[in-house]
């Protein structure tokens, strides 16, 4: 029979509430410990995989650490002749993108929505930045950059806004619509640089890639060589976005509305807040972060793209792991982005030597990413284990007493 005496306590009632309410509940249950434990377990399990392939996990992780340029901390230098400096600058390039993609997911989360469309919104920003970066070549750098970045950010906002409008008007679930919008963005990108496509390279017919952006649209590089793809000022934009994210949520009436709707739409409506408006607006802001990420990548170090690049990009999805690990907070997302940025570069291009096969190393990032999403996403499971741990203890003593 079912348990008829199950009267949910307020805490348990929150479990059945909105996603944001459940996440907040879990945050209280585990505090900062859970994300740390999550990462440690993910690394341990990743280590087991390395071990199973006959390599030493400790050496592998050290190679990844060095590959990410984190050993730079022990020998700081700004000379790009140093491998550590170069690796670190590349890690920070990845981090820049992941911060913004993470913030995109986190912002929607705080309004009770799961934006899986970061990848599509990133692409839309990426394409628009290429288009405007290639055109207006006669412009002076500052306005050119501002226009290209601004338009790309707006494009990301509009792209995500479609999902927001669909949810607010007909109740279409954002998980479904954002995934569909991802595919639409991907195929638009394929078409843009296909033969005869509007962004296809004008000097190389039949080459399915774009023109490089004009030098007036390129972001200044401040660490490393411009030609070797050094670190551009985009990272400062991303750090500013972290501050903006925090202030927007915690210090503005807009953020108050977003959080109220995220925790409890019924109470928000009762408070006089327009829930639908907030759904659309929060999705648009979420998409703006992802669109900005696309613009910074395009104008900061990639400058162009080809058809082959499109299926390879996974930053929008990594943003989900970053946001989940960072508990959808500003600082947490920043830290999550640093971790995944280091993993991303440290296991691929930065990795040297034969400590571990490069194919395995790259997949290690995805193994760890997957485990993090699994652990953080499976909040119900974690809560269940957490609660049953407490239930079991008195149960054992009670049955022991009964047996005596």
């Amino acid at each position, binding site marked *: 029979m079912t348990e008829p*005496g199950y009267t949910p306590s307020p805490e348990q009632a929150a479990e059945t509430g909105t996603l944001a309410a459940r996440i*907040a509940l879990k945050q209280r249950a585990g505090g900062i410990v859970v994300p740390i434990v999550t990462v440690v377990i993910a690394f341990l399990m990743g280590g087991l995989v390395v071990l199973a392939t006959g390599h030493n996990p400790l050496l592998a992780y050290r190679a990844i650490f060095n590959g990410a340029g984190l050993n730079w901390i022990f020998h700081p230098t700004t000379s790009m002749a140093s491998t550590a400096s170069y690796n670190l600058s590349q890690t920070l390039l990845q981090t820049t993108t992941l911060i913004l993609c993470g913030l995109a997911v986190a912002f929607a989360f705080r309004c009770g929505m799961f934006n899986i469309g970061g990848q599509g919104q990133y692409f839309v920003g990426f394409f628009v930045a290429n288009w405007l970066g290639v055109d207006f070549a006669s412009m002076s750098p500052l306005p050119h950059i501002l226009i290209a970045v601004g338009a790309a950010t707006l494009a990301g906002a509009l792209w995500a806004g479609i999902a927001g409008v669909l949810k607010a008007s007909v109740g279409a679930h954002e998980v479904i619509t954002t995934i569909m919008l991802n595919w639409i963005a991907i195929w638009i990108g394929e078409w843009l640089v296909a033969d005869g496509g509007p962004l296809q390279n004008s000097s190389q017919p039949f080459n399915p890639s774009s023109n490089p952006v004009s030098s007036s649209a390129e972001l200044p590089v401040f660490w490393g060589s411009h030609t070797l793809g050094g670190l551009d000022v985009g990272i400062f934009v991303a750090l500013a976005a972290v501050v903006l994210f925090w202030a927007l949520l915690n210090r503005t009436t807009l953020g108050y509305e977003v959080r109220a709707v995220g*925790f409890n739409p019924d109470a928000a409506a009762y408070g006089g807040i327009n829930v639908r408006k907030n759904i659309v607006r929060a999705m648009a802001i979420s998409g703006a972060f992802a669109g900005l990420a696309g613009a910074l990548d395009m104008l900061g170090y990639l400058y162009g793209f080809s058809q082959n690049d499109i299926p390879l990009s996974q930053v929008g999805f990594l943003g989900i792991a970053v946001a989940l690990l960072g508990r959808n907070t500003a600082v947490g997302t920043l830290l999550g982005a640093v971790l995944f940025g280091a993993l991303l570069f440290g296991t691929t291009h930065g990795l040297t030597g034969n400590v571990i096969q490069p194919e395995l190393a790259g997949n290690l990032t995805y193994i760890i990413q997957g485990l993090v999403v699994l652990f953080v996403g499976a909040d119900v499971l974690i809560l269940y284990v957490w609660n049953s741990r407490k239930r079991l203890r008195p149960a054992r003593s009670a049955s022991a007493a009964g047996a005596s």
Partner: protein
Amino acid sequence: MSDDHVLEMRNIRKEFPGVVANDGVSFDVRRGEVHALLGENGAGKSTLMNILYGLYRPDGGEILIQGKRVSFSSARDAIEAGIGMVHQHFMLIPVMTVAENIVLGVEPRDGLLLDERGAERRVRDLSERFGLAVSPSALVSEITVGQEQRVEILKALYRGADVLILDEPTAVLTPQEARELFEIVESLKADGKSIIFISHKLNEVLEIADRITVLRRGRTIETVPREGATEESLARAMVGRDVLLRVEKTKSDPGDVLLAVEGLEVRDDRGIEKVRGMTFDVRAGEIVGIAGVDGNGQTELIEAITGLRKAESGTITVASEPMHGANARRMLDAGVGHIPEDRQRRGLVLEFSIAENIALHDYAKEPDAKWGWLFPRRLVERARSLIREYDVRGGGPLTRAGGLSGGNQQKVVAAREISRDPKVLIAAQPTRGLDVGAIEYLHRRLVAERDRGRAILLVSLELEEILSLSDRILVLYEGQIAGAHEGTVSEEEIGLEMLGGREEKVA
């Protein structure tokens, strides 16, 4: 231990993270006795009963049934030991018949099939033996709430219960139905069954119980026989201080009409017309009470007046300003305050701090914010002074609202609504689930706000609350006003109108 003890719980202890719900509670039940368990919310009644019913494991203490020590690991064990429980919220399957619901899980079989006729016969025998009038072949969806409760009682008896736990059994019943329940309890008692009657209603307990155990903050305060106990003495034991049980108020002095509702029709989410042409008004300085059984249009009426739901037709006027098609924001700005019926779902954002919750309506206005920029320190300052004024306990301005007790949560809601200085205050079930102390506070507060010239619309399922607070009473039945009263009126008279003027149909 004497032989007539069917059940004894000794020094029961149960801890939840941060709370000791039961701290050495002892309690016993004799054969053929009604033993009331009295206490405020959070006193530990439910925890104790969930332990007895096998849903929680105690951290300490022991349970004896017929003098034998037992340890339950599930409700099934408790049922096998002869314990039955009727919960506040019934767990019946509406599309099945009464008999099918009762035998569910322990069906009499005829080969591989359910022995339908055998089941109905056994249910009929049981219901006749205890005077529980229900038709075994009726569908549960077609019977009244009072009859559903009887089905739940029959379910427990069918499983061989000797000890029956009734959890706040009268909360969902009309006065007539409650009377019938008491007769059933008497007949169960006469048959040698023992009943544990959980309640926080003092008059009921004094009427039905043989002995009364009072719990407070997880401890047994006293077990007393009914003889000699008074409402005052029990309330004092429950709360730990003297409590004013009767609402003291002077005659009302109504002024201008502040809320006028005319020909209001409202549909629910499924498009069913729940308010069907209501016309009434509420004047400054009076409390108008709306009585009625749950689900007769109360929720839709309130949602329409507060702008949370569009009315189908009719007009709402606040302080002579027509509010046609107004949304929640406009109603709030026009001076409508609202203490919602469900403070956890609607009245509060449980994850927000007290300060943020107090700002829920005016977060975008000065001094809370300017040009869209929020000033958290001002929110905290205002919350701090309201917490003091309304005596909110259990936390400061930055405490999460969900961490407060029900009474203190309701004080936060009341503080927010009243401090906005509303012209019209709608109080929906303002004391639902609150304990005696908090009820006393809120009732006094509502009367005080009336005397300050607010128009108060009180919507409550508790007839006693309506009768003791209202200056005028409207009875709501199927979305229409079935009766209007001013001055003294009996509980029975209103109870009859609550059922549409008809006697409850007995199947």
